[in-house]
């Protein structure tokens, strides 16, 4: 157990003992990997871990727990998604306790049938701008450098999005793993709005991904949960990063950096600037 983990557990134990929160969202070991866990009793805090396999963004669960007081272990990017959720009125900042963990980047998760051996830092972590969450009630320092790649494999430099999308199964893991994909009637999930036919594969994969990308522009905090959840490893975060860059250049806004800065689409007024 690392010093950071020890500190994390003691914070969570204190929160649960004092009944400051009903539940803490954290990570636990699972085989040789790590998965989300829900801790609600002080004696369960020993399950909690914090390491470079904790790629999942726990903020995804916050909306479904809206009625409860919840503690959440948040990396830098997770914290940014909490900021966006608060600004979009999806969660109440007052009812969540953010336990920020300093993050040096996460590994790409192990995938079934992969021939890669050794761990590799996720590509999106190489572009990270916030190692610590911009909102924090507690801070767990980790220190040290970004984890080293265990072997050198060339990074994804595929740029042919069409052939990348062709691999897509439309399994919705990217949508469901995303903390900011919360629309109750999703336009790309099909059924009622029927914008993108669910079964038109591969014809409408391009529409599917670009529709999602447009909705993420200027909102995506680049936590990479979609990319890591993807069973066929489409580097989605890179697409959203490009759109974010465009958004930043044009509107001077980067999502999730501060609670006070309003997202341009939300302050857009009819009839011009005044």
């Amino acid at each position, binding site marked *: 157990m690392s010093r950071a983990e020890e500190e994390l557990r003691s914070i969570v134990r204190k929160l649960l003992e004092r009944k400051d929160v009903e539940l803490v969202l954290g990570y636990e070991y699972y*085989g040789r990997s790590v998965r989300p*866990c829900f801790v609600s009793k002080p004696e369960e805090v020993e399950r909690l871990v914090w390491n470079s396999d904790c790629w999942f963004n726990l903020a995804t669960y916050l909306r479904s727990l809206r009625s409860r007081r919840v503690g959440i272990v948040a990396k830098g990017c997770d914290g940014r998604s909490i900021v966006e959720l608060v600004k979009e009125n999806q969660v109440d900042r007052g009812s969540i306790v953010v336990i920020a963990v300093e993050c040096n980047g996460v590994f790409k998760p192990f995938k*079934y*049938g992969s*021939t890669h051996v050794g761990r590799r830092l996720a590509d999106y972590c190489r572009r990270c701008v916030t190692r610590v969450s911009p909102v924090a009630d507690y801070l767990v320092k980790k220190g040290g450098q970004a984890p080293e790649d265990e072997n050198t494999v060339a990074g994804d430099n595929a740029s042919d999005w069409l052939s990348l999308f062709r691999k897509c199964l*439309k399994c919705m*893991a990217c949508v469901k793993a995303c903390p900011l994909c919360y629309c109750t009637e999703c336009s790309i999930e099909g059924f009622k709005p029927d914008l993108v036919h669910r*079964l038109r594969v591969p014809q409408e994969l391009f529409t599917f991904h670009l529709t999602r990308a447009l909705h993420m522009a200027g909102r995506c905090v680049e936590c990479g949960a979609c990319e890591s959840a993807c*069973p066929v490893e489409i580097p989605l975060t890179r697409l959203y990063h490009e759109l974010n860059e465009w958004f930043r250049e044009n509107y001077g806004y980067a999502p999730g950096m501060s609670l006070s800065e309003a997202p341009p689409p939300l302050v857009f007024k009819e009839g011009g600037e005044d």
Partner: protein
Amino acid sequence: MLFLDEDGFKRLLEQLVSNIRVIAPVETDGYFEFKTIKHGGEASLDYSNTRLPPKRFFLPQREVVFKHDPKTRALHEPMGGLEAVLLGVRPCDASALNIFDSVLLKPPNPDPFYESRRRSITVVSLSCAKPREECFCNVFEAGPIRGSGEDITLTRITGGFLVEARSRRGQSLVEVSASLFEEAGPEHLEEYGELTCRLTREMNSRIEISRERLVRLEATLDEGFFQQAAQRCVECSLCSFTCPVCYCFDTEDYFEKNAYVRTKGWDTCASTLFTRMASGLDPRVSRVDRFCHRFCHKLSRIPMAFNSFGCVGCGRCVSLCPVGVDIREVLKRWG
């Protein structure tokens, strides 16, 4: 049981490739995927398993099942599939075909699209020598040596392969190239026996359960356990879409190129839309119910109806689930 030496295997593969479409695992971008190969050398047989199961060759993610041209009034009828050999399917994935047969070919309404594909593809399985960490095929008797849906089972032993024809179609494929095969000798059979013993022991040491108890899962459902486990589920369809057994489908109609088209394609019970009716009523409204349904269907209802489980233990859902939902935890608790 027959023996095919390394050289014979290479020649058999070349013969097949020149005569028929051969689909085999090929390494691409750090993964193995089933692809049509042009020459024998493309196939790699040194794989743990393919990223995605060979399900799509039998049940494509999307297929047209009905076409109606309002002008010519021509109807679309199911076509005979293209003859092919699917080589190097792992026994677990081959066993999934057995479940497809039970469900989709069940009279009085067999699915003619599945039937034609199943009839035109010869499945050659390759036994696992090194089961993956997340594999549990032993639980369902779907491997690691023999599965239950293949036409031929190959097992790699020193110097070549042991060949077991499992169906008439498999038998005839062997007969076409009879000169390449020889009767397996006692040393081959001894090695095969040892391999079977070793692998069975290894797998059983990981997980061993009572199948009789497991079938009663639905009757003895423990909501508390599932509520805990379902909390984590984010309801994507990754587990269904990467599962070799999940066969549930949806249909969709639209107008395309002067014709009314009906397509049929993969669907998932994890979706909140799966049982929702047009009126908005939904008999399976909670996340826990949807979560339970997946396990009950596979582990309780399919075995009750067809005498084989709806899971083959390939481990894909275990490994790929973004939030670590693990079917083995259900098995350990109920089996």
